[in-house]
C-alpha cells in the first residue's frame, strides 16, 4: 500500500484524514512493513466504510487487514443509532460469528506425542470436516428455533458439554435478542444437517503445544504454561450464517435508496439500525451467532468423546470462546462520554481490557483472552485485552494471519500431499479430506502471524500471552 496520505500517529498507528464524503478518518494499526505489504484495497474499503451514516470516531483496520467484501477483513467500525447509524451485513460477513475456542487438556506434550497418530486418526473420524460433510444431529423446526435462541446454552441443555463451559463463552453462551422468525426457511434448510460440522477453507480443529509464554502472570490466570497441550476449534455459523449474509446483503442493497442511503459501493449494503430491515437483520444475525456458539459447543463434545477414548484421564475445560465476525451493542467512552454503539468487527476479535464486566470473573483481572489463529504449519497466539485497547479501537484486536496470496496461486505453488508430508516431518499431523484444500491453505499462503501479533501487542491493542504450535490439525 502506498503510505502517502497517511499521518503516522505513532510507530504502530497510521491515520488518513477524512476527505470527500468520508465522515471520519481511517486508522490502521500496523508497523511499516505490514502497512507496505497491505493491499491498496484496504485503504479504499476502510475509506468507504468511513462514509457510512452514523459512524463514530474512525474506520479502523487491524494489523492483519486485507481486501474483503465491503468492509476490509480486519475492519472495525462503530455506529450510533441516535445519529442515523447503520448496521451492515457486509460489515459482519457471510460467516457470522466465525470464531475460535480454546480448551485445556491437562496434558503435557510428551504425553500427547505418545498417542499423536492415534489421536489424529480418531479426530479425523469423529469431527465432520470438509465440503459436504454432515453432522448426526437433525433438528425439527421447533428445535431449530430453540437452538437459534439458546446458542451454546441450548447445546449444553441437550447434553453437549458442561454448564461450566458457558461462562467461558462470550455472552454467557447465549446471544440475547435473537429472532429465529427473521431467519428464512432457506437458511434453516441449509443448516439442516450441518450442526456440529467444521466446514472447509481456513476452518480447523487443532491440537497445540504451548511453545512460549510471554506474560507469566496472565498465562497463570488463564491456566496455561509452557509445554501444556491445548485444543483450538476455528469455525462459524455454517450454512445458516452464509445464507443470512447472502439474503440480507441483497435486501440492504435494494432498500438503501428508500432509507435515503447513498451507497459508495453496493458491497457496503447497510440499513439504519432504527429501521425494520435493520432490526430484522440484527435479530437474524444474533440467531446466527447462537448457531455458531451451538456449533462450536457440539464440536467440543465430539472432541471430548475422542479424548475420552485416547486419554481417559484428560479433562477438557474451556479456556475461552471468541467470535470475530459480529456486530454487537457495547458501551464505550467517546470524547469523555459513555455511548451505546453498534460495533462491527469483521475478521477482528473483541479484546476487552481488565475489569470489564463482560469478562468471566475468574479472568476479569487479567483481561479478556484473545485467541488468534495462525495457518496450519505456523503458530497461533493467546493475547489479552488491555485498558489501552479499549480506547484505541473499542477493545478490538486482530484475528489471524491473513492470506498473503490467492488460493489459485497457492495451488500453483504447492501440492497438498507434499505439504502434508513436509509438515509430518516437522511433527505436525494434518488430516483433511482434500489435498487441494490443504494446498490452498499451505502455511506459505499466509502472512507471518507473528508479525501481525507483534504489531497488535506493540500498538497496545492486546497483550501477547502465549504462543501455540500445532501438533495435529484436522482441516476442513
Amino acid at each position, binding site marked *: 500500500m502506498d503510505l502517502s496520505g497517511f499521518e503516522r500517529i505513532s510507530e504502530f498507528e497510521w491515520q488518513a484524514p477524512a476527505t470527500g464524503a468520508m465522515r471520519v478518518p481511517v486508522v490502521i494499526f500496523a508497523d511499516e512493513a505490514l502497512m507496505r505489504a497491505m493491499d491498496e484495497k484496504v485503504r479504499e474499503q476502510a475509506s468507504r466504510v468511513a462514509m457510512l451514516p452514523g459512524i463514530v470516531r474512525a474506520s479502523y483496520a487491524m494489523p492483519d487487514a486485507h481486501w474483503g467484501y*465491503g468492509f476490509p477483513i480486519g475492519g472495525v467500525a462503530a455506529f450510533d443509532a441516535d445519529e442515523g447509524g447503520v448496521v451492515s451485513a457486509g460489515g459482519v460477513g457471510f460467516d457470522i460469528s466465525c470464531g475460535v475456542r480454546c480448551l485445556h487438556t491437562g496434558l503435557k506434550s510428551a504425553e500427547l506425542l505418545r498417542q499423536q497418530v492415534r489421536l489424529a486418526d480418531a479426530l479425523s473420524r469423529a469431527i465432520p470436516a470438509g*465440503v459436504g460433510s454432515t453432522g448426526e444431529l437433525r433438528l425439527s423446526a421447533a428445535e431449530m428455533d430453540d437452538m437459534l435462541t439458546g446458542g451454546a446454552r441450548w447445546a449444553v441443555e441437550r447434553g453437549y458439554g458442561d454448564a461450566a463451559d458457558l461462562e467461558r463463552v462470550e455472552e454467557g453462551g447465549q446471544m440475547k435478542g435473537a429472532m429465529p422468525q427473521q431467519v428464512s426457511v432457506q437458511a434453516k434448510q441449509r443448516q439442516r444437517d450441518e450442526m456440529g460440522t467444521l466446514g472447509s477453507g481456513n476452518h480447523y480443529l487443532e491440537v497445540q503445544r504451548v511453545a512460549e509464554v510471554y506474560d507469566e502472570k496472565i498465562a497463570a490466570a488463564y491456566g496455561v504454561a509452557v509445554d501444556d497441550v491445548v485444543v483450538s476449534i476455528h469455525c462459524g455459523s455454517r450454512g445458516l450464517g*452464509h445464507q443470512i449474509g*447472502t439474503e440480507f446483503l441483497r435486501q440492504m442493497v435494494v432498500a438503501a435508496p428508500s432509507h435515503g442511503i447513498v451507497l459508495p459501493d453496493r458491497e457496503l449494503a447497510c440499513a439504519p439500525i432504527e429501521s425494520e430491515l435493520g432490526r430484522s437483520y440484527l435479530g437474524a444475525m444474533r440467531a446466527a451467532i447462537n448457531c455458531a456458539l451451538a456449533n462450536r459447543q457440539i464440536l467440543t463434545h465430539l472432541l471430548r468423546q475422542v479424548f475420552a477414548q485416547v486419554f481417559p484421564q484428560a479433562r477438557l475445560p474451556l479456556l475461552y470462546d471468541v467470535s470475530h465476525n459480529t456486530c454487537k451493542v457495547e458501551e464505550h467512552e467517546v470524547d469523555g462520554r459513555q455511548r451505546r454503539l453498534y460495533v462491527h468487527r469483521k475478521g477482528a476479535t473483541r479484546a476487552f481490557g481488565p475489569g470489564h464486566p463482560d469478562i468471566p470473573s475468574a479472568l476479569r483481572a487479567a483481561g479478556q483472552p484473545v485467541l488468534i489463529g495462525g495457518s496450519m504449519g505456523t503458530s497461533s497466539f493467546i493475547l489479552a485485552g488491555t485498558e489501552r485497547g479499549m480506547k484505541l479501537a473499542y477493545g478490538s484486536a486482530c484475528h489471524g494471519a491473513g492470506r498473503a*496470496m*490467492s488460493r489459485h496461486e497457492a495451488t500453483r505453488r504447492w501440492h497438498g500431499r507434499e505439504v502434508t508430508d513436509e509438515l509430518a516431518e516437522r511433527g505436525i499431523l494434518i488430516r483433511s479430506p482434500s489435498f487441494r484444500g490443504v494446498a*490452498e491453505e499451505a502455511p506459505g499462503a499466509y502472512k507471518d502471524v507473528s508479525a501481525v501479533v507483534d504489531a497488535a501487542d506493540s500498538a497496545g491493542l492486546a497483550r501477547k500471552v502465549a504462543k501455540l504450535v500445532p501438533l495435529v490439525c484436522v482441516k476442513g
Partner: protein
Amino acid sequence: MGHWEHFAHESDIGVRGLGASCAEAFEQAALALTAIVTDPAGVSSVDKVELSCEAPDMELLLADWLNAVIYEMATRHMLFSRYEVRLADGCLDAIAWGEPVELSRHRPAVEPKGATYTALSVRHREDGSWLAQCVVDV
C-alpha cells in the same frame, strides 16, 4: 466459444464467465463456481435441477444466480458440470446438470459461502462478447 476463469482476490476467489451472449457468460461463471470446489470435468451430468430468479438489474441477477447455485449445491450436496441459462426481462430460468458429491472421487477443496458484490460486473465488451464476474466468499 465461452470459457471461464478465476481471478485473484486476497482472501477469497473471483469467478469470471465469458461468452458470446450474456446467458453464456452466466453459464460460464457458474462453471467457474463449480471449479472452486472441484474440476468440473470430473462431475457427471446425470441429475438435473431447475432454477429461476429475478432481479432489478443484471449485476444483482448474476449474484442471485450464483447464490441460487450455491444454495442447491449446499442443500442437495450436489456438484454441477453443465448449465443452461435463459435470460429475459430481468428474469433467469436455468437448468443445472450434475451429480451428488462423492468425497472420495471429487475431493472437494472448499465450499462457496456466497456470491458477493465485490468486483461484481456484467458487461458487453468491445469485441462483442459478454463478461460476468464477482468475488465468491469461501
